């Protein structure tokens, strides 16, 4: 069973709809026990970095998330769910992230902000993960911020928005995307299918 972590923000029904469509059992939950017992974890994030971390604290979700990751369960972070894995963000400067990876979250400085629409992800062959699930194609983005990992070998894809930025990472059991696979049409569904097979 897949646990979709709900910290009380935004439209996370769409990821559930996509999994239903793919005929995969999942549940939207904020119950630490259900998260602990799940086989796979999806962490979709919407809202602001500070609000998200605050809610994760209040709902006591930080420990179960970190434990799931440490237990090598397949973990998929989406959008803010990617940014949460890093140490800090320019969006909420005095808030600490989950700090699974070293690095920061920065705001775009060029172009219209947020970036809204379809942009190309390009897989990086420098990625350490030998099971890279990404291929080149258009995916749907809505973001003002992007991650800068200190360890470049975790970068799985890059995308150009007035300069290249990291649009997905992969490291052991952790996969996380800045774009929304659940809103990226057939290409996104294919990607979700590949992740589900991990």
């Amino acid at each position, binding site marked *: 069973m897949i646990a979709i972590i709900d910290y009380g923000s935004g439209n996370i029904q*769409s990821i559930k709809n996509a999994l239903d469509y793919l005929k995969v059992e999942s549940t939207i939950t904020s119950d630490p026990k259900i998260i602990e017992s799940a086989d796979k974890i999806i962490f979709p994030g919407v809202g602001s970095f500070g609000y998200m971390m605050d809610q994760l604290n209040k709902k006591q979700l930080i420990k179960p998330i970190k434990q799931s990751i440490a237990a090598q369960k397949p973990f998929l972070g989406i959008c803010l769910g990617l940014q949460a894995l890093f140490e800090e963000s320019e969006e909420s400067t005095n808030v600490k992230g989950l700090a699974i990876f070293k690095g920061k979250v920065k705001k775009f400085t060029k*172009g219209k*902000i947020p970036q809204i629409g*379809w942009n190309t992800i390009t897989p990086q062959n420098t990625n350490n993960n030998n099971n890279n699930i990404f291929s080149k194609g258009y995916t*749907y983005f809505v973001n003002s911020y992007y991650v800068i990992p200190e360890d470049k070998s975790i970068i799985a894809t890059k995308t150009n928005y007035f300069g290249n930025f990291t649009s997905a990472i992969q490291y052991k059991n952790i996969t996380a995307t800045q774009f929304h696979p659940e809103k990226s049409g057939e290409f996104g569904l294919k990607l979700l299918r590949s992740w589900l097979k991990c």
Partner: protein
Amino acid sequence: MLAKRIIPCLDVKNNRVVKGKNFENLVDAGNPVELAKKYNKQGADELIFLDITASIENRKTIIEMVKLVAKQIFIPFTVGGGISTIEDIRNLLSAGADKVSINSAAVKNIKLIEEAANTFGSQCIVIAIDAKKKIGPKEKESWEVYVNSGKIPTGIDALEWAKKVESLGAGEILLTSMNKDGTKSGYDNDLTNIISKAVNIPVIASGGAGTLKSIEETFKNGKADAALAASIFHYDTYTVKQVKTYLKNKQVEVRE
């Protein structure tokens, strides 16, 4: 780079898509889910559903439609028409809409924009602006905002209004030229250009889509981030794919 978006717009009445001309002689054009699937298959980048009845009893049928679409279509979609409260927005987003488009209610109650953006995030708040060109000298071109499906002039300048809604937290602007709407004579690229340059949020050009060239021009001359079209797709003048193939040949970046 970010691709320019092609967005078919579907008018919905009593849970059915309707076609008509200038809101008259409406005929049934089918099931919203089936049409959404069709456009999705053709390569639409997003879909906009416009509830053209927007009566209270119709709210519920729209929610049901949104739920059905969200279970089958995995591209972003926006719902507009008759949205006037935070509760309306909450209901549509929890049913599966990715964004809502607010028009008259934003003008009548500007606090709604701020409250909506703070509650749900700017990314899902689209402000629709219906603008009509004012008569005057070319060098002092200006446009006036109209509300209630273009029936009531507000005296508000469209450019000032666009800047205002951005400052209040709007995530995108859906800009319709009333002069061009339904004419198929091309978008109002002067209007789109002036607004797209003045704000730092995406602008969706609407009203006037006709030839393939008119769509190319709204990107090149109007500086639009996305182009909305209704009748050219409804009447199968072009498929979304044909539009994109044409644009690609004209060096406009589109998703294939």
